[in-house]
């Protein structure tokens, strides 16, 4: 009891346990932010569009922003665990710390979480706007996407009659997808480009993206659509403009 009183005389930020908690907080925040951000970036793989690059960057930033919150909770919880543990069938003595309320701490906590929220919202809105740019691009090519149980097929309305099972796209050119379905709901998703929109029977939905890397990527169905949903996959071949024109020609379209 006397020890507590001497501690209480010092300003709260100079107390030993507070200092230790603060140190823990910093360590944990850095650990969490660094580790989780790295895991996210590595798991999501190499992005194939600016949309996906933005998404990965944003998730990393969100991780860094929430790391101090997680770190603080972790630091307090760990610090409490490190002192005054008690085992057994009877309870420990009543705690000498009996503060049941702290309007100041609560206010700081709530205002901070409000600010973090606001940041996440504004940041998300900005990225959303950026991603939507492809949808307005004047030089965009159109692809009509049709989902049917359990396959995708693609029409290229700029070149009537050209159709394919695997998707072919030129690099660095915005593409607008007009997505629909024949039977039930599917979800058109290009994994490495981070775009997705449901294919609804009876409606056309739109999404757009600008692929910025040549290679082969994956289309998967992201909405359970029945028996062979797992197999409702296609490949996306992103090729140079010249190769794309050649492919269109080989399929009977005007280049």
């Amino acid at each position, binding site marked *: 009891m006397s020890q507590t009183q001497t501690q209480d005389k010092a300003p709260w930020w100079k107390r030993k346990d507070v200092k230790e908690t603060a140190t823990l907080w910093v360590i944990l925040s850095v650990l969490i932010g660094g580790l989780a951000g790295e895991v996210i970036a590595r798991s999501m793989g190499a992005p194939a569009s600016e949309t996906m690059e933005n998404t990965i960057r944003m998730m990393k930033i969100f991780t860094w922003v929430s790391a101090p919150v997680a770190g603080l909770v972790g630091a307090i919880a760990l610090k409490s665990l490190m002192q005054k543990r008690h085992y057994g069938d009877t309870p420990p003595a009543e705690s000498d710390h009996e503060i049941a309320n702290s309007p100041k701490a609560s206010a700081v906590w709530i205002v901070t979480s409000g600010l973090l929220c606001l940041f996440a919202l504004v940041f998300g809105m900005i990225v959303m706007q950026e991603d939507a740019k492809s949808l307005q691009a004047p030089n965009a090519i159109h692809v009509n996407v*049709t989902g*049917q*149980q*359990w*396959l995708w*097929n693609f029409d290229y309305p700029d070149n009537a009659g050209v*159709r394919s*099972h*695997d998707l072919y796209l030129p690099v660095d050119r915005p593409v607008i997808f007009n997505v629909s379905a*024949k*039977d*039930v709901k599917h979800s058109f998703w290009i994994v490495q480009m981070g775009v997705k929109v449901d294919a609804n*029977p009876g409606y056309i939905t739109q999404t757009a993206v600008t692929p910025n890397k040549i290679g*082969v990527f*994956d*289309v*998967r169905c992201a909405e359970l659509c*029945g*028996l*062979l949903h*797992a*197999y409702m*996959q*296609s*490949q996306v071949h992103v090729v140079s403009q010249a190769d794309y024109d050649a492919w269109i020609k080989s399929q009977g379209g005007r280049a």
Partner: protein
Amino acid sequence: MNRRIVGAFATVVLGAGLIAGIGTYVSAAKADTTILDATPAGTLETPQGTLKHFTMDLSIYPDSFFKTSSPHPDWVSYGPSTNFRVPAHSAITFTMKQYDSGEPITNDFFARVAGTMNGTINIDGKDVTKVDANTIGHTFTVRGLSNGKSNLFINVPMPMVPEDKMSENEGEYINPTIVKFTIITGDAGEYVWNCEFPCGDGTLARFGGPMSSQGFMSGHFIVTDN
């Protein structure tokens, strides 16, 4: 103390055993467990050189009375099995006897031939690359997962038998449309196939019933190394 350890251990063993039992039961409870193997038939000259040649004969019936026990005898079905096993890196010639009627297909993408040798199929003696989208009976459409190893796409549309030509002889259908085609298999892998012509009458989008149940209009397509 000992009793508790034994009890806890016994509970774990019993629980795991229960799960294994149920799992084995569910795993075995497949409506169609038979697998049809391709028949060897010498070698075949293909654009990819001389390959081992195999054949496989399949039928498509407007009902499944041919099965000894079917929960839905009135459902359309492939026969004699819905699971096929073919060797890797070989040429497989399919002969399909299509006995069913048909109508316009909802998605005419599947009226086009894809993935066969030379891009053609042979219908009653004529080589074609697509079938009139208004007179489709069924399709045979194979695909795998989209990784480099098992990306595969085969689509074979099969014309309908006109209603007035559909006839039976002592419970057997006669007068099929005969569709022949050859495919060249790649690496081994597990693929699936299904019919892309909506033929589940009386269900939404006509894709329920036989289209969405095991053992009728879909199944496994297994490519093996041996």
